[in-house]
């Protein structure tokens, strides 16, 4: 219930923070995942660097047809900012599913993404949005795709000394319908499965579709088999059901007290169908 001792730094600039992190300090953002672990002494970092207070990381802005979201933007910001609500509603909708009011007030998109919890909500949306994740260390900056960023359970493309500084998502074309559908684990509120769908219509058919899935396996993924089974097909319930059936294709599903692998895979199919249906109804 009480953390081990540690040193705390709250640098005024990102450069200073990156310097400390290069020396081995651990970044602290909202702390929604890290602090409970520290209290149980499952995590005992020696030095924390507070990123949440850096103005350099706290913004949501539109540039060149994309939304740039600073790592320190809270889930509440992402859920409610007019820019995200208006121009990337999938991300706003997903943020609204994270934790509870208090968690959304403190938790940040950068912290969540870097933590790479296999049951986190954002990754599903980021996969579907083909978001870009900007990483920076004391020695430079690079941008990776969502698909390349999330590698495995709690494992990302972040190198030692590197942090997430920004998430870039597209400004959604007006005709796209999007939806995030989540089956939540009732005790913790984490996703048993969460499915984000982006759907465009092509006349009476499905146009390009992106589906991102979280919770089902060790990391989030794009359900390309589902996407392929939709695009170009009639936008009907029959197509949706047939396509959603591929949601867990080739995926080694997780198993825990709350959902066996078999049940989880079945939920992935159901929630994929729901997400597609809902996104379709919102598309024009």
């Amino acid at each position, binding site marked *: 219930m*009480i953390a*081990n001792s540690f040193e705390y730094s709250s640098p005024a600039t990102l450069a200073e923070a990156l310097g400390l992190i290069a020396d081995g300090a651990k970044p602290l953002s909202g702390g929604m995942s890290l602090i409970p672990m520290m209290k*149980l002494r499952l995590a005992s970092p020696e030095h924390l660097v507070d990123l949440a207070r850096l103005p350099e990381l706290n913004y949501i802005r539109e540039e060149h047809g994309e939304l740039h979201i600073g790592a320190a933007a809270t889930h509440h910001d992402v859920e409610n900012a007019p820019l995200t609500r208006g121009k990337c509603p999938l991300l706003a909708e997903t943020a609204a599913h994270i934790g509870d009011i208090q968690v959304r007030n403190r938790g940040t998109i950068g912290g969540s993404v870097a933590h790479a919890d296999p049951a986190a909500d954002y990754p599903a949306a980021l996969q579907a949005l083909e978001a870009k994740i900007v990483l920076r260390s004391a020695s430079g900056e690079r941008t990776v795709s969502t698909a390349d960023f999330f590698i495995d359970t709690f494992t990302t493309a972040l190198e030692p000394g590197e942090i997430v500084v920004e998430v870039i998502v597209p400004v959604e074309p007006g005709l796209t319908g999007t939806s995030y559908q989540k*089956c939540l684990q009732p*005790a913790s509120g984490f996703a048993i499965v969460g499915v984000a769908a982006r759907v465009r219509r092509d006349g009476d058919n499905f146009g390009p579709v992106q589906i991102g899935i979280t919770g089902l396996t060790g990391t989030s993924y794009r359900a390309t088999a589902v996407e392929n089974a939709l695009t170009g097909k009639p936008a009907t319930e029959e197509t949706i059901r047939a396509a959603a059936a591929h949601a867990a294709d080739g995926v080694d599903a997780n198993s825990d007290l*709350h959902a*066996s692998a078999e*049940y989880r895979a*079945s*939920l992935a199919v159901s929630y994929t169908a729901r997400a597609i249906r809902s996104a379709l109804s919102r598309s024009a």
Partner: protein
Amino acid sequence: MPVSSIVKLEKLVGKRLRRREDPRLITGTATYVEDVKLPNLHHAVIVRSPHGAANIRSIDISKAQALPGVLAVYIGKDIVGVGTVPCGADLPGLRRPAHHILAQDRVYLVGHPVAVVVATDRYIAADGADLVEVDYDVLQAVTDPEKALAPGAPSVHPEWPDNIAFTFHQNGGDIDAAFAEAEVVVKQRITSQRLVPNAMETRGVVADWKSNDRSLTLHTSTQIPHLARTLLAGMLGIEENRFRLIAPEVGGGFGSKLNVYAEEALMGWISMQLGLPVKWIESRRENFMVTIHGRGHVDYLEIAAKRDGTILGLKLKLIQDLGAYHQLLTPAIPTLSVLMMPGLYNFRNIQAEIIGTFTNCVPTDAYRGAGRPEATHGIERMVDILAAELNMDPAEIRFKNFVRPEQFPFPTATGLNYDSGDYANTFQKALDTIDYQGLRTQQAEARAAGRFMGIGISTYGEICAMGPSVATPAGGWESATVKFEPSGKVTVLTGTSPHGQGQETTFAQLTADELGVPIDDIVVLHGDTSIVQYGIGTFGSRNTAVGGAALFYALQDMKEKVKKFGAAMLKTDEVIFEDGHCLDPKTGASVTVQQIAGAAYRGIVIPKGMDPGLVVTKFWEPPNFTYPFGAHIIVSEVDPETGQIEIKRYVAVDDIGNQLNPLLVDGQLHGGAAQGLGQALWEQGVYDDNGQLVTGEFMDYTMPRARMMPWIESSHTCTPSPVNPLGVKGVGEAGTIGSTPAMVNSVVDALSPLGVRHIDMPMTPEKIWKIVNGSKA
């Protein structure tokens, strides 16, 4: 004084009065144990076993001792002269493991206390606890009671290799004749899983020993301050009259604080060793691991009946998961289940066997309902199973078997004597409220459309107002003191120990009405053994039905006393007492109770045969339990694709006799229903084979949250109890007992087209999904 000037106060009993205890609670100024601060207060953190069963090879405390700020580190062998944790239940042949306050050479469950670190600060104490090194020789554990009974199972206590703590038999009527006469017999194995009470305030203790006075003050989060004091005084070998136990604001109990715990004695002992005040606050993780759990039944049930639905008799084999030790009432809880097995039904033949089984788990004990939810779930499930077998409507079979109003007082097959009731009337009200016939029509339509809609009925009875002293381990009476202060203000001291139930309000309502004083002039005190006369405490829905009755009788005695003083002051023989006045009917002259109080303390007018002062204390022994009952009906729908259950409607009609404050009654019922639905749908204390509590934090133990709870449509019938003068029956546990089987029966009903007869709890979506899919395959 002319009569016309007497101000009649509004009668308060029966009013929806907001609570008088709330101002301190909504402003954050109440004092819970953790809020107690004393000069030079030190803090203790306990080192606990991570293993379900292990021998302790060695413990190295040197590093912890060396940590600056650490005052002391104690292990089991340091504890000398302290008794073992008591068990108040007595059953023939009961095996009682010695339950030391710190482990000796072996640990029996995950969380077993092994060492304790005392430091100047809780952060340092936690650091010190981390430095205690314990070398364990890990042994095979057993956590499932049926596995524990199997030949060759690991022994929880080596001295009792069969893991059986006791067997208990209770028979009534002629069970063989009933089964011989039966035209149909239905059987079912029904489990009632372990539940974690999870009061929002964990336990906590502040102990303060004053060696010069040889006196101990112990602040502890308990439901039973006086009993805890008596038992802890015995454990610590100190004098009860030099031991002040205070239950400050208590943040929920639900039975989990109806106990005496190792930590209470341990903190007392440490304070005595160090001569310093010591505080220990349980973490949530500790609360999951070492505060008692509830339920833990595996029941094998059989019902014999006639083809027309008449129930003839019931057989029960009950395997109780006791855990590794007995806490205060551990072995007694399943005996309550046996008592209530007949439910509301008119059959006289019963055969019950309990096998109390040791496991490497935390002890089970009283959790809201304590034995009755298990029994009610069993009988209400069995009645539905019988109805299904006979193709009868579950409502019809209940009407057929109810005890009828003219049969009261009704002696049951298990030796109880039901006080009063009209079961059919209450049930009919519930059916009418929810439009039962209309629902069945809707259900037929839903089924035709391939939807899984269910209607679940539970007509429950329970045993409340614990209880006659012969039937309770520590005495079942309750006490009340009523004091007029010289100013005419009234202080009430109740031996109950309310912690959310609202007796500071309801007892003041009762007192105001009886004495005719403004409610603002009344204070109700409880929970401090140095202030309040001995009392039994708060559990078993007894506060109002026993404690309130004791208060009622104290108030009658007080009125008699007031009248004598009033008559003396008015210089007359006979006065009428009403509306806070004594009135001489012959002259019309009157004096107020305030004037009388002043005079009684002033001592100028002392009626013949009376003493000065106006204080009455009453200890009241209840002649019987009370037996509330009711009908809960839940409409649900199951999504076959995901197994998720949606509660569409929840109607509850409860008969708890008279009500002092219906607003508070509603609160008790809602909260009870949440816990009952929690058992039916979400909550489960799951141990793995090695003794790890898998659902050991809120991360994995699903507590009912606001978004999961349905709207509860609550109403009442009223058959006053003849057992006590208030006609009340008790409401603390009714919601918990009534709700669970209604929920399960609803889902079983929804899935009955698939041939489903029973589902064990909790009915998780995956379980439902498997049933639906299994039936497809």
